[in-house]
């Protein structure tokens, strides 16, 4: 397989270079003021009516026949830049673009407007600049990248106020969340009510809901690629904010002008500091806080070489003490990621990236009470290396190929407990070690003016290796046998090939048809026992018992822009099937994980999701925003659940509507509004009850056969920019109201049963709990 793949690669490279008398123009597109790279800028050759766009690092390369060309660079929010070049040798040319007056506003000052969403081959993809995210009303004053993602069609929130998201009927663990290429295993703080992404340190966010190019892999449902800012390499700046629950500060600047810059950004909540004086006596020492720290250094040591070093470190810490009961709990959890990357440009046409990343997520828990003690630990640690190439042989092809390798160390939960003198010991921490490797090849090829295709292959290899101890259980969960595997001894190995294909057919200048097909394998999964995503949910890899998850997705869509590109619209339909999904066996509880391999507790099934997504976006003018609507259906089929009958997935949502609007009232005043409507969550309720030992026991109805009331909510925000033209210090005040009309959205329902058997009376009341009522917040932001 590998041999054939390389052969294909070489053959393709040869046929690209058959044409003679061609020269290459290449360089970077950057922001003139800060020196930040501008990814996704449009580089257009007037004479050929063709173009390309800059990559994630702002690099572009065009190989054209000898001649004189007019090159036009456009990038939203920046003034257009036009240069005439005489191409009779290879040329290096950097473009420095100047920002238009208002930060983050899509104002095109001159020139032709681009139908980028229509012309590009990407579908099911959204790019959100962080400046835009900042204009959307915020929750408790914290600008949240993940919550703005939830407002896009095909993406659903995992619950009230929660930053977790579901894409096209996939679970929360089926999203590949990357921060500067390092995998983030738990993107939430405080049970997901806040995301770990501090908007001040983030440059942009790219979401792919399906048909991702072959350089991405490992998850079934989506890719969320978040890149951190690089730091201003021209002058020092600080941004900060003071909100009701947290404060932020970001400092950036050049270490050496033009070549080396840094950024450091921190955020910490202060609920614990504010409530400290209130917590007295027995409860002293109880508190909760979280913090984030982002840093990045980047250094250009030549025109062709750059190094980036970036890191993220975040923690949630909760401690609870009750002296009277002698009870104390402490559990810190959080992520750490480190990425080191070297960019290199070979002979102007090949862009190379070598990236080493480290990612760590862990959760520790310790509780003590007199003669009872409980300790638990779970975590994931990844070491990975990837080599990626972008080869731009000529204006018609963009070839990407590379290899990726990760060594995973999963520790899905180990616990020890002591009651009195008896130790309930689960033994040592159980490790699951894995080799995870992939190679890929992807070519984006403009076959004709109208037709563009992208085809890719991603062969993957996943191997579960020792040391490992497997407990073989009988039907009654008794250990029948234990198998011991030596270090690096392969226990289970999976090899798969994932094809990816997409095409764009231009019907006319402002209309195109796009389609995609993709296969994905997923070798890691989150085992969630409860319906809330908790930090205790453990990641487990594919093993000899857990087969890799697999999905196939077909998508097609029409993209059309109206009124000279002012309105972008699209309609997409998708059909997705999933295999080897995991769930816990029915009726299991947390202690079944102790003294056992967690994968012994799983049961396997399939899933299906299909739907239509409608999107209208207004890009220019004082009024900006979008409307997204999704009509979809998602089901699960597990032989061991619900008596083998298909049932609606927890994230099955028939209707999902989001409206996002921002309006510039004047230079000083900005308004923002959000409205969301979603079908109620599917849930399982008791249908009947009976007596055992004189107590009432419930019999539950079919899985997820009941719907909670629909979810809807409106948020508004007002931002006032203080006058400060010409001054260095700029500041603004943002006032947001979450849940404007105080809708009591169901968070869950529970039953309150009063039993008085002596008087033969039983009464049951259903109670609906709502989480956040109307919630105003205010944030003061500044920069200098």
């Amino acid at each position, binding site marked *: 397989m590998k041999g054939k793949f390389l052969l294909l690669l070489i053959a393709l490279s040869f046929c690209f270079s058959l044409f003679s008398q061609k020269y290459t123009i290449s360089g970077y597109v950057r922001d003139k003021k800060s020196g930040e790279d501008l990814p996704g800028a449009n580089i257009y050759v007037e004479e050929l009516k063709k173009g390309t766009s800059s990559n994630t690092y702002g690099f572009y390369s065009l190989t054209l026949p000898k001649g004189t060309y007019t090159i036009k660079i456009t990038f939203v929010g920046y003034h257009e830049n036009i240069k005439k070049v005489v191409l009779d040798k290879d040329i290096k040319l950097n473009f420095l673009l100047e920002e238009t007056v208002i930060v983050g506003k899509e104002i095109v000052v001159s020139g032709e407007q681009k139908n980028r969403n229509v012309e590009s081959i990407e579908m099911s993809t959204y790019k959100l600049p962080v400046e835009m995210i900042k204009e959307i009303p915020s929750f408790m004053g914290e600008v949240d990248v993940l919550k703005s993602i939830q407002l896009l069609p095909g993406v659903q929130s995992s619950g009230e106020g929660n930053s977790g998201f579901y894409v096209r009927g996939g679970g929360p663990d089926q999203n590949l969340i990357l921060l500067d290429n390092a995998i983030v295993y738990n993107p939430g703080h405080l049970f997901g009510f806040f995301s770990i992404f501090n908007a001040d340190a983030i440059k942009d966010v790219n979401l792919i809901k399906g048909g991702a190019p072959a350089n991405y892999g490992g998850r079934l449902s989506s890719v969320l690629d978040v890149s951190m800012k690089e730091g201003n390499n021209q002058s020092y700046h600080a941004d900060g904010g003071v909100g009701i629950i947290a404060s932020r500060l970001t400092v950036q600047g050049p270490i050496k002008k033009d070549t080396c810059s840094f950024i450091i950004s921190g955020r910490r909540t202060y609920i614990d500091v504010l409530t400290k004086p209130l917590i007295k006596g027995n409860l002293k020492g109880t508190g909760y806080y979280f913090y984030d720290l982002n840093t990045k250094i980047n250094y250009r040591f030549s025109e062709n070489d750059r190094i980036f070093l970036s890191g993220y470190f975040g923690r949630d810490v909760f401690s609870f003490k009750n002296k009277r009961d002698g009870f104390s709990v402490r*559990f810190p959890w959080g992520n750490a990621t480190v990425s080191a990357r070297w960019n290199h440009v070979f002979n102007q046409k090949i862009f190379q990236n070598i990236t080493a990343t480290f990612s760590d997520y862990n959760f520790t828990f310790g509780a003590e009470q007199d003669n009872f003690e409980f300790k638990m630990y779970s975590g994931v640690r990844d070491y990975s290396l990837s080599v990626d190439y972008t080869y731009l042989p000529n204006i018609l092809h963009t070839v990407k190929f590379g290899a990726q390798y990760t060594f995973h160390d999963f520790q899905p939960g180990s616990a020890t407990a002591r009651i009195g003198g008896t130790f309930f010991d689960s033994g040592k921490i159980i490790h699951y070690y894995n080799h995870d490797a992939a190679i890929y090849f992807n070519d984006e090829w403009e076959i004709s003016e109208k037709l563009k295709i992208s085809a890719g292959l991603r062969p993957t290899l996943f191997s579960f290796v020792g040391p490992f101890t497997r407990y073989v259980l009988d039907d009654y969960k008794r250990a029948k046998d234990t198998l011991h595997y030596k270090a690096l001894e392969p226990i289970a190995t999976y090899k798969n090939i994932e094809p990816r294909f997409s095409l764009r057919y231009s019907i006319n200048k402002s209309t195109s048809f796009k389609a995609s097909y993709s296969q994905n394998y997923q070798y890691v999964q989150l085992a969630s026992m409860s319906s809330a995503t908790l930090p205790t949910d453990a990641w487990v890899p594919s093993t000899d018992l857990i087969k890799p998850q697999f999905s196939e997705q077909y998508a097609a869509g029409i993209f059309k822009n109206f009124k000279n590109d002012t309105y972008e619209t699209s309609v997409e339909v998708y059909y997705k099937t999933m295999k080897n999904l995991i769930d816990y066996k029915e*009726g299991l509880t947390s202690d079944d994980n102790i*003294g056992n391999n967690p994968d012994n507790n799983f049961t396997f099934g399939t899933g299906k999701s299909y739907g239509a997504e409608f999107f209208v976006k207004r890009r220019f003018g004082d009024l900006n925003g979008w409307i997204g609507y999704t009509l979809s259906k998602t089901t699960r089929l597990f032989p061991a659940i619900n008596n083998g009958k298909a049932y609606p997935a927890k994230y099955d949502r028939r209707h999902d509507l989001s409206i996002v609007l921002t309006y510039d009232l004047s230079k000083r005043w900005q308004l923002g509004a959000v409205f969301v409507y979603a079908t109620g969550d599917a849930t399982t309720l008791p249908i009947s009850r009976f*007596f055992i030992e*004189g107590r009432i026991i419930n*019999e539950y109805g079919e899985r997820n056969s009941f719907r909670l009331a629909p979810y809807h909510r409106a948020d508004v925000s007002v931002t006032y920019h203080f006058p400060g033209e010409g001054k260095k210090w700029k500041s603004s005040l943002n006032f947001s109201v979450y849940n404007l009309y105080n809708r009591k959205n169901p968070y869950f329902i529970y039953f309150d049963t009063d039993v008085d058997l002596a008087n033969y009376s039983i009464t*049951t009341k259903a109670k609906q*709990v709502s989480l956040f009522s109307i919630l105003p917040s205010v944030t003061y932001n500044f920069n200098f």
Partner: protein
Amino acid sequence: MRALFVFFIWFVLFTACEKEITIDLPIPEPKIVIEAAIEQDQYAWAFITRTAAYFAPVDSSIIMNMIVTNAKVIVSDGMLNDTLKLTFDPYTFPYLKYVGKIIKGQPGKQYWLTVIADGKTYTAVTTIPNPVPIDSLKFKPDKNQDTLGFIWIYLKDPDTLGNYYRGFTKILGKDSVFLHPYPSVTDDRFFNGQTAEYQLYRGRNPLEDSLYNDMGIGADGVPRWYFRTGQTVVVKVAQMDAKHYDFWYSIEQQFMTDGNPFASPITIRSNIQGGAIGVWGGYGVSMDTLKIPKHVKR
């Protein structure tokens, strides 16, 4: 893990509000519920009832309708048949109990149950495992208490894995039936072959709920779950087979997770064939009596 839930719930309740709602649930067909057991040296007994719709208001006539009084209940040891007779038991809800009079349980033997109710036949089989003897019992006062406390059981678990325990207590002169704490069942996965110590508190008797307030505190200010110095307590440790244990385990798991909206619902397991809910369970028992002295040193 519960502490995490406590924190989670605390966070939720910190910001949450609730309201009463009405829910339209489909009315399901009633099912037969069998709660039947045969204990070592005792005759078999059974309660045969029906399920009721979850939201149906329950009063005395509905409860009477839930009890099946005309079922045919037959226990067999493979040689003899024992047809259980409907009797009145004033100490156990719902009072109308089928009781045998021929076959007494013996450790190591298998027993079959056949129930014919509402025109359908249900069958089950269970075993009575050999009992595990109690080494010793001890009363330990709770901290900050002198006269109130819990009973500790000490026993040696057999070397083979797969012992399933259930503990009961009965205070002589106070309790009319054996009561058990929640949870009352455990298996020996974590202490196989070891000397185990286990703490028992006094369980709840559903017919005595009116004697205690919502917090479980009696009129005399004494919580329901304590044993007291000077009392004489019979302790019963029962052995079950795996399917019998599974039933009680699922029942007790439902109790633990009941009201926790984030836990997935616990389906009650059953060892009964034919579509009924419930259990036919054998108990191998060892009993011991603890006379708690008037004065106990801490």
